[in-house]
């Protein structure tokens, strides 16, 4: 049973690391439907670790705390089940799969998701119709579908492809891991506009970024600053602008002084 306004994601006192090294040391976060959250932080603060743990990448040890996704224990689920349940990760470095046609890949993925949700699988014709609609959101050319997954794509094309996949798979929770990295300003705008078009009242977005500039295009409801494995500060969009102006050092010193 779904509760009214039940959070999509609840992270409670999450501690995690890699090979004995502590990275996350007590992260707390609640994301509700319709919200856009941004996580910012200096390099090495644990931003990408958090994304990886949410998606279920191997090699991370969760030592304490819990993560609930629509009330369910997310960490118990295999990565593909999380994906089918509606958790989507836009990769910082999208992976190339040579020889595998993009259409074929995405159709297989979508049909796994649909099966999981009790929907009928789409045939080739239905899928193509859907995909053509979604391609408009990202201003993609049609030959894109015939190319192998990410192979030979430019940095910008890879990132656009991530958001395109997100458009097709319609996740509940989209985690965008440094989606702005390596994008020029035009590509950034296209990608950000794509993300904004996919936002609606029932889903949520968690945008991970080092720089403020992405948040000129994707307007967050909340901005969290991750430092030393904890959320050091939470605010609204103004916090991001302040960080841009004063740098992470300002905040970290400030936190230290108040501690």
């Amino acid at each position, binding site marked *: 049973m779904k509760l009214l306004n039940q959070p999509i994601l609840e992270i409670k006192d999450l501690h995690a690391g890699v090979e004995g090294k502590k990275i996350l040391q007590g992260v707390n976060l609640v994301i509700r439907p319709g919200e856009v959250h941004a996580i910012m932080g200096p390099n090495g603060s644990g931003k990408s670790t958090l994304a990886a743990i949410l*998606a279920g990448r191997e090699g991370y040890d969760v030592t304490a705390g819990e993560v609930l996704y629509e009330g369910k224990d997310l960490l118990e689920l295999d990565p593909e089940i999380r*994906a089918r349940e509606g958790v989507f990760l836009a990769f910082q470095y999208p992976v190339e799969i040579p*020889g595998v046609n993009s259409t074929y*890949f995405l159709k*297989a993925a979508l049909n796994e998701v649909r099966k999981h949700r009790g929907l009928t699988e789409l045939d080739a014709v239905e899928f193509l119709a859907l995909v053509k609609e979604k391609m408009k959101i990202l201003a993609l050319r049609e030959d894109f579908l015939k190319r192998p997954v990410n192979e030979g794509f430019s940095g910008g094309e890879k990132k656009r492809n991530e958001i395109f996949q997100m458009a097709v798979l319609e996740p509940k929770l989209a985690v965008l891991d440094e989606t702005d990295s390596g994008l020029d300003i035009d590509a950034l705008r296209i990608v950000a506009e794509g993300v904004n078009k996919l936002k609606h009242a029932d889903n949520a977005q968690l945008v991970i970024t080092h720089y403020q500039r992405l948040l000129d295009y994707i307007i967050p409801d909340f901005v969290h600053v991750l430092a030393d494995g904890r959320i050091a500060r939470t605010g609204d969009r103004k916090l991001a602008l302040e960080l841009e102006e004063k740098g992470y050092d300002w905040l970290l010193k400030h936190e230290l002084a108040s501690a």
Partner: protein
Amino acid sequence: MSTATDTIDEFVQSDYKYGFVTDVESESAPPGLNEDIIRLISAKKNEPQFMLDWRLKAYRHWLTMKEPAWPQVKYPPVDFQATIYYSAPKQRGDAPKSLDEVDPKLLETYEKLGIPLRERGRLAGVAVDAVFDSVSVGTTFKAQLAEKGVLFCSFTEAVQEHPELVKKYLGTVVPHTDNFYAALNSAVFSDGSFCFIPKGVRCPMELSTYFRINAAKTGQFERTLIVAEEGSHVSYLEGCTAPMRDENQLHAAVVELTALDNAEIKYSTVQNWYPGDAEGRGGIYNFVTKRGLCKGRNSKISWTQVETGSAITWKYPSCILQGDNSVGEFYSVALTNHRQQADTGTKMVHIGKNTSSTIISKGISAGRGQNSYRGLVKIQKSAENARNFSQCDSMLIGSKCGAHTFPYIEVKNTTSRVEHEATTSKIGEDQIFYCNQRGLSTQDAVNMIVNGYCKEVFKQLPMEFAVEAQKLLGVSLEGSVG
């Protein structure tokens, strides 16, 4: 949290679908090899004297040879005196005159293998010669092919019906002295397929031979001879399976192709001999010599192989590019899982002017499999403007397997151009995770990634078999990572 590796581990036991034994009464020679056995085989086949002489010559030469030690494979010595060299299902009375007279048990066997020996149904456009242990049990579509002048029959029948053609071409591409296993095969070969495409004929359907080893402790030694006369064209496919047994069985075949002026032969193999179990018990030793001679101008020979079976594979389908402007191609996917070992590749020997060759080799090693590419590109002094392009890729799945590449290049003509590219990649956990994150299971992800990697080769296969090959790769890959 269950990791991708755990998920993959769950697939550890993959089933070899073709491991059953057909309970059929057979007639076998006693184990061991000597001149009497060879005379027995020749007599069983009612062969003319020239065949017996040729066999004995090969046998005597074989006695002077040593088993090759250079392949990158390890196995205990083969006891050639413990192998049975002739085994055939017993027939009541005369040989069957048509498919209707073939023992139903044998027909059923091929039915189970997915190769119905009926001239309709799924393989309606493909003529099949079915070889069971040492003999051919039936050939489909012979009559239709004969209308076009195409001869397609068992080797035994060819020796009886067309001895002049056999005498003319036998051993001209792979001489009986060629190598240890080719010499052995020349002495004891018991059957195989014979195809002759006359001048100017485009063979109206795919020709194929399906090899099945059934009897225990028996070796299979077949010989295939394909001759394409001037301007003719043929596409040929062979498939192979064997029961699951704990002992190793020997398969030493010879395939000879000859293409005359403007002729084209396309030879495809889907090799799925029993590979042994996960611990490396049993499986077929596949020691095969395949060679094509582009004898005429503008002739073309193309080899495509998908090798997923056998405990050990030792095989180098090659092209001798003798005619000017002739073309040789080699497209290969070789997969070794569990404890399989493969040492496979090709030889392209350029003799004629403007000859060109292409080599695309895709090796996949999983489990504790060992996979070697071994290839020779040889440009003779006479081969003005010869061209070769080679691409040898290796993919590793897991951390206990191995991939090796042994390219040999000999160039004696300065106008030629030889290009060689090689890559080795590990199937990325990143790639698998990426697929997982989009909702695909790990096994589906591995299959998809490997099929993508092999795409260039699969697209060379005849349509009917490309899909089969993809599925086969999927089955062979089960339990491949961990």
